[in-house]
């Protein structure tokens, strides 16, 4: 096995993506020190509630963050057998950060320089090496162009099929691959004439048509009907087996994550709080568990709860808005497992992501010995 096969396909290290809330005169620390790995032929699920920064992480990898200041730190190493590079190489030269007590208080950014450099880094990757599918597939397709042509465009941009006819055949092949019924008929249809499920199939076909190494699926089933959701999941699972593509799967739906993922990262307040194999992270009865993951799993109506008609276990308080980030643990205010010994630390210091068991990382003071 070559070295490329052993090192992870995507390695995000200490990624920071901030926005600026003009009306509040403060930063939105949307992604604040995220570290993640996606191995070859692996599916990594990222689960979290709104505002946890999971989608922003994906967008940062794709270089799609438009609003300022955007990505301000960290590294994203990408290594397929074709391309190897840091997607944020040299971008820090365009950014000037001032911190105060370890907290970013001021950012000066050369927007145009940063944009140009980022575009240069991403130009041979976007769509070709890394493809992405989105939530709300119908809005994500261009309503003015037929779906067939949108797939053909991706084929011609990124594969050896340059002639119109060849590319068209290739696009049709991919429509068949995603099990679109009567693909030839749908080829000339506009997205407005298709259901949400069909549009998501088109999105998947378009993403895979350039034969990328990494697929980022950002809430691919959200907003679809339950029966359609299960179909899309089935499709993603089959395609994963057939093509061996690595996937970064982002969802708030624990069900979807548990079905598709090999490894799972749980995000809260812009940081990964737990990271490990799907079984160990999502098992509600596991011995080592981050308090947030435990509470999250418990707040989903389980069969037992439904049976007993018992009230759900809730997490008190509101989802953290990443504007007013507390100095200590992000989850501290809502946590029900704070013990007197660690209370002090929870309130004042942000815990590090540390390994608590082989391949199982945790960001919690309870597990720091």
């Amino acid at each position, binding site marked *: 096995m070559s070295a490329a096969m052993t090192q992870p396909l995507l390695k995000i290290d200490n990624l920071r993506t901030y926005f600026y809330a003009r009306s509040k005169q403060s930063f939105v620390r949307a992604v604040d020190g995220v570290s993640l790995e996606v191995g070859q032929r692996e599916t990594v699920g990222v689960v979290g*509630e*709104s505002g946890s920064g999971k989608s922003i992480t994906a967008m940062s990898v794709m270089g799609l963050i438009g609003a300022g200041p955007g990505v301000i730190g960290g590294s994203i190493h990408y290594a397929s057998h074709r391309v190897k590079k840091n997607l944020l190489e040299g971008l820090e030269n365009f950014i000037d950060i001032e911190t105060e007590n370890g907290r970013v208080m001021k950012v000066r950014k050369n927007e145009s320089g940063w944009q140009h450099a980022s575009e240069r880094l991403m130009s041979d990757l976007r769509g070709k090496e890394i493809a992405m599918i989105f939530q709300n597939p119908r809005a994500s397709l261009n309503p003015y162009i037929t779906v067939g042509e949108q797939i053909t465009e991706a084929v011609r941009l990124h594969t050896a099929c340059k002639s119109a006819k060849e590319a068209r055949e290739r696009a049709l092949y991919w429509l068949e691959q995603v099990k679109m*019924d009567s693909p030839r008929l749908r080829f000339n249809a506009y997205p407005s004439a*298709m*259901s949400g*499920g*069909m549009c998501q199939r088109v999105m998947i076909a378009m993403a895979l048509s350039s034969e990328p190494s990494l697929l980022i699926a950002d809430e691919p089933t959200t907003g679809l*009907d*339950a*029966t*359609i*959701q*299960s*179909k899309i*999941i089935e499709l993603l699972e089959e395609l994963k087996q057939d093509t061996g593509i690595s996937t970064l799967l982002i969802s*708030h*739906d*624990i*069900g*979807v994550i*548990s*079905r598709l993922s090999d490894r799972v990262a749980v995000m809260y307040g812009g940081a990964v709080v737990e990271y490990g194999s799907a079984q160990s992270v999502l098992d509600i009865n596991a011995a080592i568990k981050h308090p947030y993951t435990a*509470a*999250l799993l418990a*707040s*989903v*109506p389980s069969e037992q*709860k*439904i049976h007993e*008609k018992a*009230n*759900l*276990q*809730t*997490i008190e308080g*509101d*989802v953290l*808005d990443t504007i007013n980030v507390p100095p200590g643990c992000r989850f501290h205010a809502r946590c029900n497992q704070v013990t007197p010994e660690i209370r002090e630390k929870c309130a004042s210091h942000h815990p590090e992501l540390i390994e608590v068991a082989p391949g199982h990382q945790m960001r919690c003071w309870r597990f720091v010995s």
Partner: protein
Amino acid sequence: MSKTILEVKQLSKHFRRQRSVFSVFNRRSDTIPAVDKVSFYLRENETMGLVGESGCGKTTVGRTILRLTRPTSGNIIFDGRDITHLSDQELRPLRKDMQIIFQDLDAALNPKMRVQDILNEAISVYGRVSDAEAEVKLRMLLDQVNLKNSKLSSYPSELSGGEKRRVGIARVLAVGAKMIVADEPTSALDVSIQAQVVNLLRDLQKQLGLSYLFISHDLQVVELMSHKVAVMYLGRIVEMGLTERIAGSARHPYTFILWSALVEKQNHEAIQSVKMDRRAAWGVFDFERPASGCRFAPRCPVYERRGRPAECTDPANEPQLRDVGEGHQVACHFPLGS
């Protein structure tokens, strides 16, 4: 047994296709049957869940019951009174008792009003209240929905999703509703907040004896909330009964598919056992031309397995709801397990 607060009989709502002077040119049918002959009843202190995929007409049922739109035919009997044909003027005093929570968190919240103004307005809709009384009522409402006092002077845009939902519920409670149509009250919320709202709604029901018509596509939440469940498909109720029976021993193939999709989404092992021959096609729902006979036939695995029996597509023989024991009703020619 407690008394029936709401009874719906053969309720239909057909939407008119947009008509213009030029509609002569396009030869399409003019009405879309969003709700078609729906009947059910709701008792006091009871929750009825209404589930179905998007576009099946469940939201329209909720809006029609509250007479926010005029039904095409059928009857709505609320608290012993037929409200189907009441005028807006006559309806207003009745609205005190029946309320709705919209899916959109902002629906109940005027973006330019503070929370206290929104709630005070609701408190004084049905007759003037003295300032002192309003103050007391306001405190009580905040207490009931577990909202912090400090939020009173906030504008809706400064609230989080969960807080907006709480204000929306408080607004509905302020008028003293007995029956509440909850239209997807949790779907816009995060999982942890969703659990808070579900618990809140359940607690309020226990405290105040409320009745809910709980409309949702989230089967787990519906299962937890409801005593009874009705499953809608393309404007019709295809199965109805006690929650345990619908979830546990569904008789209609559609209900079965819905629930198994839920299970299947989550775990690898379950798939093999329920896979069967269920191959629901990717049909686009076409309201304009309901399939003749049973609406579900085009997607129905049973129909396929039985070799496409003629009665399923016989237009004169659309399956009607019939009782299969213990108030469990199903509209299917070949219900499962028989």
